[in-house]
């Protein structure tokens, strides 16, 4: 029983990481109907920036928000420079552009930072604390706490502020939004900036668990896809719930059923299973077309 609780807690910690990256995917999907395949690589690059800042002596707790700010600016720039010229292109064109972007960022990270894995130290110790008879590490608990804060901040931004309202309006009905005075194109850039910052959180959280190198996010993005698909690719709440479910499921199935090597296969099974049985996910809206 005690071991089960521990597996659930560490599953929730990885779930928080998947949820952040899945939320980044959902933000861009909602803004332009596009799955951003470069999201993981963008997060990886931001993590390298955080690593560089910290290894130059900056305090972790200053480097973290600073990196999120830089990731936001980077996301806005990518939208303006790379996505804007193809904004109205068919979705397949956009998908290929994001795949190219993923390769480009991956190569750039290798060029600037090298392929040698770096140990990214976390300010939170891996020592454990006893909660109701089960042991959870400070690191896992801090990941859960940070993810919760970030997800709550995004929720409040989207649901409780004017900019969130116009962001949602622009995503749902670009034409009507334009006629209500919203600068839809800038809203897209803002969406990319937010997604980039939220994704960076997942990179910085996962780096101390894995090792930081250019391919670090390539399995994490699969889990994030699974989370987003399970939750419903257009639902921010779904991304969070999906992330937690995927984190806990993968951890439990990995620990008790298939073993650690097949954990990624569990994520892929979730993706296929959801798409076959419930394509809109848990919280997604069904696509309705009036003909």
């Amino acid at each position, binding site marked *: 029983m005690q071991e089960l609780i521990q597996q659930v807690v560490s599953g929730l910690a990885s779930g928080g990481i998947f949820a952040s990256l899945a939320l980044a995917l959902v933000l861009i999907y909602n803004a332009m109907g596009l799955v951003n395949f470069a999201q993981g690589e963008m997060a990886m690059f931001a993590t390298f920036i955080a690593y560089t800042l910290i290894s130059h002596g900056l305090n972790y707790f200053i480097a973290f928000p600073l990196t999120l700010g830089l990731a936001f600016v980077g996301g806005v720039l990518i939208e303006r420079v790379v996505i804007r010229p193809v904004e109205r292109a068919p979705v397949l064109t956009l998908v290929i552009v994001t795949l190219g972007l993923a390769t480009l960022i991956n190569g750039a990270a290798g060029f600037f930072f090298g392929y040698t894995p770096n140990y990214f130290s976390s300010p939170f110790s891996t020592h454990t604390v006893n909660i109701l008879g089960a042991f959870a590490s400070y690191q896992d608990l801090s990941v859960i706490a940070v993810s919760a804060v970030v997800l709550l901040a995004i929720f409040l931004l989207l649901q409780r502020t004017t900019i969130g309202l116009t962001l949602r309006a622009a995503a*749902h009905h670009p034409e009507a939004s334009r006629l209500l005075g919203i600068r839809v194109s800038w809203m897209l850039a803002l969406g990319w900036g937010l997604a980039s910052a939220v994704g960076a959180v997942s990179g910085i959280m996962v780096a101390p668990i894995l090792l930081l190198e250019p391919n670090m996010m390539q399995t994490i993005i699969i889990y994030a896809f699974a989370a987003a698909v399970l939750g419903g690719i257009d639902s921010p709440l779904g991304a969070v719930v999906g992330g937690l479910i995927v984190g806990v499921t993968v951890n439990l199935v990995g620990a008790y059923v298939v073993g650690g090597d097949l954990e990624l296969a569990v994520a892929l099974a979730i993706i296929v299973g959801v798409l076959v049985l419930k394509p809109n996910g848990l919280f997604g809206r069904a696509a309705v077309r009036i003909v």
Partner: protein
Amino acid sequence: MAPILEVRDLAVRFGGVVALDRVSFKVDEGQVVGLIGPNGAGKTTLFNIITRVYRPAAGTVVVDGKPVEKMAPHEVVRNGVARTFQNLALFRSMTVLDNVLVGDHIRTRSGWLEASVPLPWALSAEAASRKRALETLEFVGLSNLASHPVAVLPFGTQKRVELARALVSRPRLLLLDEPAGGISHEEVDGIARLLRRVHTELGMTMLLVEHHMGFVMGISDRVVVLDFGKKIAEGSPSEVQRNPVVIEAYLGAA
């Protein structure tokens, strides 16, 4: 009185189809002008030019002294033009109140920082915005539905939500595309009463497209008639109703 809207020699072509052919007319401040004509006469096209969805092939539209061709679509609203749509363009996943708040956002005028971080002065601006939105909902008779998701409401009620969303920005010119289209007889009377109040109580200048003749003639100060992209008549409702060219356009030659 200065015209708030001036349409001058406007021409629009879609490929070989001439949707508007050198149309000119004016809307003076405080007036209600009806725009009528058989299907395909170019009424909605004209709205789409005024709100900068399309660009004209020739001619110009001047709103409050400024030509709209030089504006981006989002600037037209900031210049005081609001519209409703023939087939509704609401944000279906949002509540009634949120829909109206989107209409109000251009009035809050806050920058990105104020709009995203709950700073004290931004909070009071948002409270003021909510107050205006709720007052507008009360005006159109929907204050009890503010927190309802808009998608589940009947079509006629959704039309009122759209009207509230347009009204809340206090436009200088309100464009109404078939406000009585697709709703029941009782609702048509309700909408007519409501628009009359918009005119008398808020002093709003309106240009409306409508097929429902009783509705248009009852509310308009002046009526402009389009047929196959050309203006064929203009005048008071009674003049237009007696005009043989108009009768022929609607009923065919006797």
